[in-house]
């Protein structure tokens, strides 16, 4: 976007075992991720809650932490052990997916036990992957696509938020694979994207936008129409 250094992905690792925390931390750092480790689900939520306090007020019951040194810090992925005392990894997964501010963060579950029903439960609840311990470098390599996909979605959301109108529904609409296709097209031409989005009959200030649309339509009508159809279909 204009940052001097390539921003690294930030992973939050949750495990009650110190040995495993050391291991996962090293695996993630070697893969060039920024890492924060915590030893419980509740501490994970505390940390995540402190991030949320920065930009917008959280509408869900996350514990508030004074937002001192987490300014602008993002978490791109949560990787958590399943078996933990108190809040299990599954409980944490549920809480994250129930939170309006956190549900877009991909969650990966780790477990030392291969229990098919457990795996199914987690995937159904929204976990991206289920990794069997001991975790290896090859497992960590599988994490990047999840972070990239979500980051792309976030960048899209940020771009559209710069618009005077609010285009909530088309962002929230499609399941990941379709959205990915959509954003691939949109990212090619941000100009046309802005105009196409303003076609949504949301605000009363349509006149100026409509003029812009007419101009753009002259330039590349097909692309605009295709995209609009793409949104409408979903």
């Amino acid at each position, binding site marked *: 976007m204009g940052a001097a250094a390539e921003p690294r992905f930030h992973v939050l690792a949750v495990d009650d*075992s*110190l*040995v*495993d925390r050391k*291991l996962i931390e090293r695996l993630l750092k070697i893969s060039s991720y920024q890492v924060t480790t915590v030893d419980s689900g509740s501490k994970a939520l505390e940390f995540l809650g402190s991030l949320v306090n920065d930009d917008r007020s959280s509408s869900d019951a996350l514990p508030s932490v004074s937002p001192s040194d987490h300014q602008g810090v993002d978490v791109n992925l949560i990787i958590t052990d399943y078996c933990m*005392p108190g809040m299990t990894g599954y409980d944490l997964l549920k809480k994250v997916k129930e939170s309006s501010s956190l549900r877009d963060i991909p969650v990966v579950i780790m477990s*030392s036990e291969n229990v098919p029903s457990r795996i199914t439960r987690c995937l159904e609840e929204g976990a991206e992957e289920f990794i069997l311990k*001991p*975790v290896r470098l090859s497992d960590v390599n599988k994490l990047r696509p999840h972070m990239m996909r979500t980051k792309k979605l976030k960048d899209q959301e940020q771009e559209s938020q710069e618009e005077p109108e609010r285009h909530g529904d088309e962002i929230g609409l499609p399941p990941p694979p379709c959205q990915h296709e959509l954003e691939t097209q949109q990212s090619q031409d941000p100009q046309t994207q802005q105009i196409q989005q303003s076609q949504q009959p949301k605000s009363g200030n349509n006149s100026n936008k409509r003029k812009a649309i007419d101009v753009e339509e002259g330039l590349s009508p097909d692309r605009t129409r295709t995209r609009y159809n793409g949104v409408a279909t979903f």
Partner: protein
Amino acid sequence: MLGWGVEFLRAEMNRLLSLLFHQGVLDEQFLQLQQLQDESSPNFVSEVITIYFHESEKLLRNLRLLLMDKELSDYKKMDIHLNQMMGSSSSIGAKRVRNVCVAFRAASEQNNHAGCLRALELLEHEYCYLKNKLHELFQIEQQRALASGVRYPAQHD
């Protein structure tokens, strides 16, 4: 003759590692640990193993305490400790220790006090053996690091 020392020590390390693999004391996960060690984290393996030793000894003590009174043995608590030990042993590649934990857990699930005692004895034995061998490994590694620190003008790695 320090150049010869480095090679000798490296061979000694490999010999010991091979033995431990052959005996099933260590498995492939231990190699994974070694691969995570590099210049940016030169003591990674020994750091993790040291944490493992501390945790394991605490768990073994707790297990022993839990088994002291036959009537009041808290098998649920034992399970928790065993799961922790199983997990960390698996994470560092301590295969035999992990396997004894599995057998121990089976006895605990049956509330089999005598079986648990036997399993604990075996677990302590396996853990001691592992600890001694890993210490040996670290000593050789340290000597090797010291020896290879000395450079002669025309020396090649």
